[in-house]
């Protein structure tokens, strides 16, 4: 792909959603709902078309020429010989293209769905404006080839997430959830910015301005180091940080903190379940398919650095797997349909983070791709259910929906199977990355065994959700009177169900247990290793064994869930009431008390501190400022009193000053004499 066409295509895919956002936001309130529906959706459709063109171009490029970095324009010229320029650089490579396709493709389906979902909402123009803006920010994030641009995209997705979680701003809980998400995101933003500073200061290119051995002036020595913000240059010179050095470990841990905040990983995960306060299409697009996987993307993009720090990447792998188990455990007892799916998202992203932590980047991105399909599907199907039940989200009030909403129920079943890892999408990606877990990563195979446990948990909660919501008898009037959604909301669901069903098979056909197309496609991006060697892929026989174990465990989970929540053969209530066991469901139901712990450890002390500072600050800080303004007011009061408006007063002043002036002149003349 030539530089010009890369710049043109990247510019288009960036500008189209931004244009859509501006049109919807500025003209939408004037031109009405039909205009907004078309403008908001067509802009994303056009962006998807451009993304497809980019994909074809990258596929068709010769080996070694698939990655193109172009500078769109020089944004900030900070002088000093061009070292500190911030230019708007974009990189188009396989990783970026994969992300682009998912963002715009799944984004398009969800935008179409939103037309139906927001049919009666008065704020539809605002909604589509925010959604388009989100697509723009996400595209900016994945295309960025400059630290500053990356951070701008990173912060802009957090902003659009904030705006969309708090979309129904008249609801107190939505506003609080939006604020919580924003604050957690900012923790990650700060970590990312510090990491960027460290990279900028420490990764320098040595220019041959001062030949070795020669005596040079200080200026020449300073000019010798080329500071850079450009990501390709940073990666190319990353070895100057030193393999395994404390510095590179620190940078990687900071990057990982940023990734954890964005991807809702322990300990920065508490915002994601609350983020379900937003409209369901938002949950599907931002909090399942795209934004929350930005952390995975970040680590994959900075893989050169993570390869240099075994400590940091080991930590990433452990946190990912830990979050996967924890979220799976919590998902078992949640009763809000969206929260269950939110925790499952957290758990699945934990697996992706684990994969990128052990160096299986392509496997992590493979899981990202398939997860985007089936998780968007689950959310949109859940949206249909919520819509049909008039905003009822409690699964205890559902039941028996499979005979009332056939298309949604079948799609949800496909999504649940894909999530649990049997037959459909999740089976391939999860077993693929767990297969890597057999041979790589810290404490092998301890984390692999935990991963197998996650498989069981996933099967359990996925089919608890399906069984409780869709099978049995309806448990409320709303569920009894539920009707299938309209076609504009069903088509995206059906398409996503089809994708979830066939994508894994298509990508791994005909060799189902070995290398797959995504792997071959992405591996050139991940071929530059400074530190450790690339992660070892399991051979066909070991892969087959791992595949068998993984699917077997998923089936165990699914089977147990079916026995408990679909057929009701096993009654757990007596077992769970036993003294020692009682604690377990209690922990799960209360989300392991994370919110309470954070409230006690962070929120309350900070609030108390703020209150104390205010008590101290009001007299100390405000006093002098009030005093200054009081002096000015009093002083000007004197002069204000002179302006009486009476002619005789003004005449008196005139006479008075003429007299004073005359006397002064006479005195001065007398002195001079």
């Amino acid at each position, binding site marked *: 792909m030539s530089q010009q066409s890369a710049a043109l295509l990247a510019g288009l895919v960036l500008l189209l959603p931004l244009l859509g956002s501006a049109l919807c936001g500025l003209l939408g309130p004037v031109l009405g709902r039909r205009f907004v529906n078309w403008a908001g959706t067509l802009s994303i459709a056009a962006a998807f078309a451009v993304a497809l063109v980019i994909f074809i171009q990258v596929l068709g490029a010769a080996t070694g020429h698939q990655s193109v970095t172009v500078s769109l324009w020089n944004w900030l010229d900070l002088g000093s010989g061009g070292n500190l320029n911030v230019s708007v650089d974009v990189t188009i490579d396989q990783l970026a293209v994969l992300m682009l396709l998912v963002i715009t493709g799944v984004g398009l389906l969800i935008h179409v769905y939103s037309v139906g979902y927001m049919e009666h909402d008065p704020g539809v123009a605002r909604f589509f404006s925010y959604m388009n803006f989100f697509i723009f920010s996400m595209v900016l994030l994945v295309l960025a080839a400059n630290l500053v641009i990356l951070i701008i995209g990173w912060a802009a997705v957090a902003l659009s997430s904030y705006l969309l979680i708090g979309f129904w701003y008249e609801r107190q809980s939505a506003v609080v959830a939006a604020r919580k998400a924003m604050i957690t995101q900012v923790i990650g933003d700060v970590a990312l910015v510090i990491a960027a500073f460290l990279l900028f200061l420490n990764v320098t290119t040595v220019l041959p301005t001062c030949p070795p051995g020669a005596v040079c002036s200080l200026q020449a020595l300073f000019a010798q180091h080329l500071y850079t913000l450009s990501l390709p240059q940073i990666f190319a010179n990353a070895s100057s940080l030193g393999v395994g050095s404390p510095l590179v470990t620190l940078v990687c841990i900071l990057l990982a903190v940023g990734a954890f905040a964005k991807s809702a990983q322990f300990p920065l995960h508490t915002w994601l379940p609350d983020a379900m306060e937003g409209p369901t299409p938002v949950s599907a697009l931002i909090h399942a398919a795209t934004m929350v996987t930005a952390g995975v993307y970040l680590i994959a993009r900075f893989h050169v650095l993570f390869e240099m720090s075994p400590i940091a990447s080991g930590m990433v792998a452990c946190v990912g797997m830990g979050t996967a188990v924890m979220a799976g455990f919590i998902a078992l007892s949640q009763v809000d349909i969206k929260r269950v799916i939110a925790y499952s998202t957290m758990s699945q992203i934990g697996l992706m983070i684990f994969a990128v932590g052990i160096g299986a980047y392509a496997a992590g991105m493979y899981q990202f791709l398939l997860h985007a399909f089936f998780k968007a599907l689950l959310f949109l199907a859940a949206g249909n259910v919520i819509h049909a039940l008039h905003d009822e989200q409690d699964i205890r009030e559902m039941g028996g929906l499979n005979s009332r909403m056939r298309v949604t129920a079948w799609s949800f079943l496909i999504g649940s199977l894909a999530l649990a890892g049997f037959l459909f999408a999740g089976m391939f990606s999860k077993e693929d990355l767990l297969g890597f877990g057999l041979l790589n990563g810290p404490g092998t195979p301890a984390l692999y065994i935990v991963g197998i446990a996650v498989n069981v948990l996933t099967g359990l909660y996925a089919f608890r959700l399906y069984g409780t919501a869709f099978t049995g008898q309806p448990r409320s009037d709303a569920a009894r009177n539920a009707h299938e959604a309209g076609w504009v909301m069903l088509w995206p669901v059906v398409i996503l169900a089809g994708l979830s069903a066939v994508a894994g098979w298509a990508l791994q056909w005909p060799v189902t247990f070995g290398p797959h197309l995504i792997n071959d496609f992405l591996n050139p991006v991940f071929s530059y290793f400074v530190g450790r060697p690339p992660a070892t892929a399991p051979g066909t026989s070991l892969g087959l064994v791992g595949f068998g174990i993984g699917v077997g465990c998923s089936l165990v989970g699914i089977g147990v869930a079916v026995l408990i929540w679909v057929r009701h053969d096993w009654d757990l209530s007596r077992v769970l009431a036993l003294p020692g066991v009682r604690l377990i469901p209690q922990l799960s139901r209360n989300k392991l008390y994370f919110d309470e712990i954070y409230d006690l450890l962070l929120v309350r002390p900070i609030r108390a501190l703020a209150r104390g500072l205010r008590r101290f600050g009001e007299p100390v800080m405000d006093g002098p400022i009030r005093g200054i303004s009081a002096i000015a007011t009093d002083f000007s009061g004197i002069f204000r009193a002179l*302006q*009486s*408006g*009476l*002619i*005789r007063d003004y*005449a*008196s002043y005139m*006479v008075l000053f003429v007299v004073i002036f005359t006397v002064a002149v006479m005195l001065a003349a007398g002195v001079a004499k």
Partner: protein
Amino acid sequence: MLSPAMFPWILLTAAYLFTLGALGVLIRRNPLVVFMSIELMLNAVNLALVGYSSFLNSEEGQVFAFMVIVVAAAEVVVGLGLLTRVFSIGRELDVDDLDELKR
């Protein structure tokens, strides 16, 4: 031709008249009397100018006195025009009452 001994008395008279006019402007509230006081001040200045002219044996002071008379006439035209206008809209003729610029 005045004798030089007269000169201080002329200046003193002018100063007396000027002070009288200034006090009239400051104290009286009837605009017509204020006008008359202003005229008094102008003529006090005229007297001083003419006195100096005679004392210094130059014509410039007298020319200035004529200028002052002309300007005073013009000022009276404008001022009296304003006053009749104020009177015709039914306002009391009182300089303290005419304070709209402040409000």
